[in-house]
């Protein structure tokens, strides 16, 4: 009896310490995760004069909407970048989902004889790639994609990982449904469209969200292929804006830049806020789809 009591007592003190340490560590890391966002947002509302004299602050002395006013009034460049990103997100996600769900459906059909061969054909591309340079030469010299919006969509519209995720999701739909639809005389495409698609809505949402997120965050192919500023996707537009001053900051080391009336420093942060905003606003609603995709995808592709 005495021993048990001692054990319980012992349990209580270690438990308390472990819990306390856990709360503190997790809380601190969560704050560290939020800090850059908070700094970015408050910097975007800062008065330009204050940034130039004292620098970016978490809690500014002044509050100014000037950066946002400037962005909204002279919005043609930013507006176009938004347009490009919305276009590639909608078109890329829709096409990608359609193609990948059909492929997932076919590769899941047990009576489709060559499904292992085609699965391997798709899978092998994740193991070995020709590399950036041959891809670039193909896109520019042979497909003439330089400066085309399709250069932003095509390289990532279909992903091997998503096809297998789609196929694994479809495995959960019972075969008997397929059999009864065949007996009713439905063709292969109709079974896919009218029987499987409605049942696959949660998985379509998961994969669609990942795909849309990828297109929304797209900057890399913009940097590689796009030359006309009007066709820059949002994130690349933002990156150019930030990088230009990185170089300037190096050149004018220690020299205060004559800012005149333009809120150049706060406008950068305001653009970043506008580029991230939709993700942060949608995140609470979309999160559970992301998590289900992550945990399924992590185990096996």
């Amino acid at each position, binding site marked *: 009896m005495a021993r048990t009591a001692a054990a319980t007592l012992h349990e209580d003190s270690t438990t308390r310490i472990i819990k306390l340490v856990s709360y503190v560590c997790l809380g601190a890391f969560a704050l560290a995760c939020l800090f850059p966002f908070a700094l*970015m947002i408050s910097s975007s509302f800062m008065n330009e004069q204050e940034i130039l004299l004292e620098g970016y602050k978490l809690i500014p002395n002044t509050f100014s909407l000037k950066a946002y006013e400037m962005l909204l009034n002279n919005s043609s460049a930013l507006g176009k970048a938004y347009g490009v990103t919305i276009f590639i997100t909608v078109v890329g996600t829709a096409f990608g989902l359609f193609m990948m769900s059909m*492929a997932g459906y076919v590769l899941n059909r047990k009576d489709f004889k060559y499904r292992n061969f085609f699965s391997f054909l798709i899978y092998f591309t994740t193991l070995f790639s020709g590399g950036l340079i041959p891809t670039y030469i193909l896109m520019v010299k042979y497909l003439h994609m330089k400066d085309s919006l399709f250069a932003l969509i095509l390289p990532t519209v279909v992903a091997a990982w998503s096809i297998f995720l789609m196929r694994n999701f479809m495995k959960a739909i019972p075969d008997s449904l397929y059999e009864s639809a065949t007996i009713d005389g439905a063709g292969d495409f109709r079974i896919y469209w009218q029987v499987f698609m409605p049942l696959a809505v949660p998985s379509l949402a998961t994969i669609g969200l990942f795909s849309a997120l990828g297109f929304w965050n797209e900057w890399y192919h913009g940097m590689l292929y796009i030359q006309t500023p009007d066709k820059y996707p949002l994130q690349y537009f933002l990156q150019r804006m930030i990088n230009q001053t990185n170089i300037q900051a190096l050149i004018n*080391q220690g020299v205060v830049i004559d800012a005149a009336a333009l809120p150049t420093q706060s406008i950068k942060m305001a653009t970043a806020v506008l580029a991230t905003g939709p993700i942060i606003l949608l995140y609470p609603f979309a999160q559970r789809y992301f998590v289900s995709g992550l945990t399924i995808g*992590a185990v096996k592709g």
Partner: protein
Amino acid sequence: MQVIARLRRSGGNIVREVGKNKILFLMLAPVILYFLLFHYLVMPGAYVAFVDFNISKGIFGSDFIGLQNFEFLVKTGDLWNITKNTLLYNFVFLALGNVIQIVFAVMLAEIAGKWFKKITQSILLLPHFISMVIVGVFAYNMFNFSSGFVNTMLVSLGLDRYEFYSDPGIWKYIIVAFKIWSMTGYGMIVYLAAITGINNDLYEAAYIDGASRWQRIRYMTLPMLKPTFILLLLFGLGGILKGSFDLFYNLIGTNSVLYPQTDIIDTYVFRSLVGQFNFSMGAAVGFYQSVFGLALVLTVNYIVRKIEPDSALF
């Protein structure tokens, strides 16, 4: 291999098969064509690594120079430097990343507050969905010379401003910090799923036997996470030659002062494309990365199949 052998045996059957399942083949066709065009058609293009590339002559019209590109890369020490950097960074990402993820997953499993749990999980996962361009903005917001937050703090403490963008040494830590920042939530959720999968009866039995909470973590939770840990580590090692181009490029950009300690294979290949237009040299590095990368994945998969056949990739 088996698949190919079986296919060969069935030979002419494929024609009959296509005739029978016309619609299924049509439905699969777009994706297969996509992979043939954007992946398989590109693979022979790796030949550009063995030529003196001339854009007007094209890949296969340029002069063949054998291994000269590779020789040059070895002689200048470039290949060694970028390989070393890529390996070291990835190793730190893997080791430090996994340890932090496991610790946080265990902590999250231990605490009772449901509300706190949910919120923390959401917040930690958020960085995973942010583009690396935004991470570059964060770095600028914090570290730029004239107005960065850190310099604001230094000045307000009466210290001198620090020129982060001309000190290569400090970026190692900034890169690792941002990588950990962005990947912890994701990894933590994977480990948390493994912990949730552990049978609760075991914990109850241990509790009745008088095991303390620390003992339960040390002798039950951690050993049960070992298989997941080993698998993630092995697959991570399989991809150790692949760099996080997004992260490195957005933090370092074209600031050549920082290259010595921050140049990885992927940034080098990219620069040979857009900066120097030295296609063959970049392709040589890319080819080296792909071949050794494939060898690594095959080795890792072989090992995984030996120790845990169910988790092997193929």
